[in-house]
């Protein structure tokens, strides 16, 4: 089936829906999403969204910018960080005006709380900057934005999965190909502008806070088309995932006063970040936890530690962290009011992704050459405001600030440009891929490949990395790719073929993993979320630059791009 719109937004998480909200009544826009919008993973975000409102204590956007840059281990593009922290304030008010039910201060303003890495006066002490709605801030953002879409009569194509991107020969984006999961039909969406907002790819790792649907689809699709992925080696491990399950216990737990303890009951963060303690940035804490475990300080010699909330008043736990309390009760049978909670770092957030400029336009090289008509925003994109490590709450800020900018820019773009003609058979690649999967013998089971992929990625591309491990992983990926070519879909039907969807996603996971490993191997230094045991120090001389990974017929080629530095010169990062 053929559809023609001015603009197509792929992904209905916070980024996609914030972009859609910019069109209000103007322009013919459709949102294509493989899940019902309200199922998007933005809804899982718990803790908060930062903006220097200063509702409770003095705060300035420039402090927020500094924290972002420092938190990102100086790999942040500072022009983008400036946009982020300045516009965060406006974006949060815009969300409030749309109806988002933030928690309130006694005088009726938006309440704010502490979060990891957010400080006053360039690192002096923790500051209350995270605006929140209990521990379901992301849920409220997602609901509020979806509701705006209903108000504005946005066209939604739910349960339609993007399987290919359409470009002209001159490299102008003119649409996407989607698979309607319910009917099994292929749809061609012809558009002047396309925004990719498909979220992260945490499912490349075994223990992750990410949804089963977060498989890096758009990253992989672009990668296959020869477009680059930026800084893929930087993946954030969140310190407090529920042991084994990976379900996230928000940093808000520590923002409200929670403490991490090792098996001996020690508050070990005193040794690693004497100033910010348990509210140091995530990369540092996750590494510290692993170091404790390696030193034999895990609980009962095992590979987990404890999050201690027992000293907090019961009302704080029940009222400010109700969902988290519920998770701990449901999945562990423990009561956080009286029990220590077993935790373990969990794969959480992709700092890297599709390179874009501050307008959300996708760029393809070190000169930031843009692909006309192609935009990306949210976790899938790399602006880069998170650099080597994202600060807590900055992702939600990223979604709304850059989702908004991308939406606005697209609106202008589509007014000034026409639809570019499509190829005669624009969906042939997608059809060929799906036909192969549907007709393949089922020699290999996709589930086996996925399990092995996730296990090996966790072991060799997790918190600690070495050249040796990464090389081993690279050859493993080669093997898995080969086996993937022999995977067949077991469900041969057309209606709601979940099996086909999962196998397509597996293909994306493998490609994205390749980019992660290539970046990790290339970057011979340790910075933020990327820690090489064989190169344990940050190396600003050689590596104060972004990596770009390109897929070519001869394998993956690495390029690079300078970091934009405007206000803050790189310094050593201590907390």
């Amino acid at each position, binding site marked *: 089936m053929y559809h023609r719109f001015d603009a197509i937004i792929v992904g209905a998480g916070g980024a996609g829906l914030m972009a859609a909200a910019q069109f209000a009544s103007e322009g013919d826009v459709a949102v294509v999403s493989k*899940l*019902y919008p*309200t*199922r*998007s*993973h933005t*809804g*899982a975000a718990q803790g908060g969204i930062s903006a220097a409102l200063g509702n409770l204590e003095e705060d300035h956007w420039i402090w927020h910018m500094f924290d972002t840059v420092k938190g990102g281990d100086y790999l942040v593009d500072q022009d983008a960080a400036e946009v982020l922290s300045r516009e965060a*304030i*406006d974006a949060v*008010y815009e969300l*409030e*005006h*749309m*109806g988002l*039910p*933030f*928690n*309130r*201060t*006694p*005088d*009726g*303003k938006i*309440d704010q709380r502490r979060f990891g890495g957010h400080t006053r006066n360039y690192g002096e002490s923790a500051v209350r900057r995270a605006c929140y*709605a*209990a521990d*379901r801030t992301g*849920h*409220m953002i997602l*609901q509020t934005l979806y*509701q*705006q879409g*209903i*108000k504005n009569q946005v066209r939604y194509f739910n349960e339609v999965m993007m399987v290919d991107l359409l470009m002209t020969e001159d490299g102008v984006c003119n649409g996407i190909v989607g698979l309607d999961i*319910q009917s099994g039909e292929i749809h061609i969406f012809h558009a002047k502008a396309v925004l990719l907002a498909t979220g992260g790819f945490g499912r490349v790792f075994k223990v992750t806070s990410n*949804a*089963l*649907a977060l498989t890096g689809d758009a990253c992989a699709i672009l990668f296959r088309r020869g477009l680059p992925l930026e800084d893929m080696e930087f993946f954030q491990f969140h310190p407090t995932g529920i042991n084994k*399950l990976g*379900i996230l216990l928000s940093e808000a737990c520590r923002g409200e006063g929670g403490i991490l303890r090792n098996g001996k009951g020690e508050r070990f963060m005193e040794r690693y970040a004497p100033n910010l303690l348990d509210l140091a940035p995530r990369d540092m804490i996750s590494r510290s936890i692993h170091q404790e475990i390696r030193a034999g300080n895990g609980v009962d010699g095992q590979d987990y530690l404890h999050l201690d909330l027992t000293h907090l008043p019961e009302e704080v736990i029940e009222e400010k962290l109700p*969902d988290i309390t*519920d*998770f701990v009760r*449901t*999945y562990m049978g423990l009561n956080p009011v009286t029990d220590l909670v077993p935790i373990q770092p969990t794969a959480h957030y992709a700092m890297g992704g599709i390179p874009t400029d501050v307008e959300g336009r996708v760029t393809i090289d070190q000169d930031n050459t843009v692909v006309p008509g192609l935009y990306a925003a949210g976790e899938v994109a790399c602006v880069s405001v998170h650099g080597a490590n994202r600060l807590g709450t900055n992702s939600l800020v990223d979604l709304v600030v850059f989702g908004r900018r991308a939406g606005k820019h697209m609106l202008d773009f589509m007014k000034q440009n026409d639809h570019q003609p499509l190829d005669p058979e624009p969906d042939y690649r997608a059809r060929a891929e799906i036909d192969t999967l549907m007709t393949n013998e*089922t020699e290999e*089971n*996709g*589930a086996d490949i996925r399990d092995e992929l996730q296990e090996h990625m966790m072991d060799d591309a997790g918190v600690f990395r070495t050249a040796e491990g990464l090389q081993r992983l690279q050859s493993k990926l080669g093997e898995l790719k080969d086996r993937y070519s022999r995977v067949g*879909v*077991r*469900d041969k*039907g*057309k*209606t*709601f*073929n*979940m*099996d086909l969807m999962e196998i397509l996603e597996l293909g994306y996971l493998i490609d994205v993993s390749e980019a992660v490993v290539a970046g990790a191997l290339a970057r011979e230094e340790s910075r933020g979320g990327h820690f090489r045991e064989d190169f344990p120090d940050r190396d600003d001389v050689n590596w104060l630059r972004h990596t770009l990974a390109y897929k070519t017929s001869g394998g993956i080629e690495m390029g690079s791009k300078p970091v934009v530095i405007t206000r803050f010169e790189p310094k050593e990062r201590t907390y």
Partner: protein
Amino acid sequence: MQVQFRIERFNPDQDTKPWFGEYTVDVEPTDRVLDALNLIKWRQDGTLTFRRSCAHGVCGSDAMRINGRNRLACKELVRDYGSKITIEPMLGFRVIKDLVVDMEDFFASYRTLQPYLVNDEPPGVGRERLQTPEEREIFDDTTKCIMCGACTTACPITWTNEDFLGPAAIVNAHRFIYDSRDHGANERLDVLNSKSGVWRCRTIFNCTEACPRGIEVTRAIEQIKRTLLTGE
């Protein structure tokens, strides 16, 4: 532990009526029912179809009947059910395939009640609309809704009466009606006062019992009834 699953299957491409598939799986007692479904799908029968995403009860994808009651598969642990578990799709919606049901009407009912903030007064630039913590508290419970549909399809009225908007739509109207910043209450209340609205509810409480977010659904509905009655 070994668990026997009976799962209602229906593939419109080949079946004329639903049937039950039986599967035995080896799971940890602390595994989620969703984990078991994944195991069956990945290791035994690739055609088994269901919706899922977050796997921890916040996205609302996987509401289904587990041993006869609406639950999220990702929020139920196998150990709480013992060695025999029956899984069926939610009642009252058209089954698309296996456990996947058509949610279009469900979302249509939701849209009927203007589920967005109605307030045409321009807010001040660079500041928020004020609201006290007490005003915020009044509608806190109903902001938790994840649109999973468990409540609506647990309500016996919705099984037979297509006009009833259903508890989920009412919950989301409640979230706005009692928001001090909202001005759209009257229009929503007009709809809720009609034949398809709150008066259809017979205080059966199945909705409250089924809600995986612990929302006091019946309470919200009763609050609206009282508001309609007293005008407060």
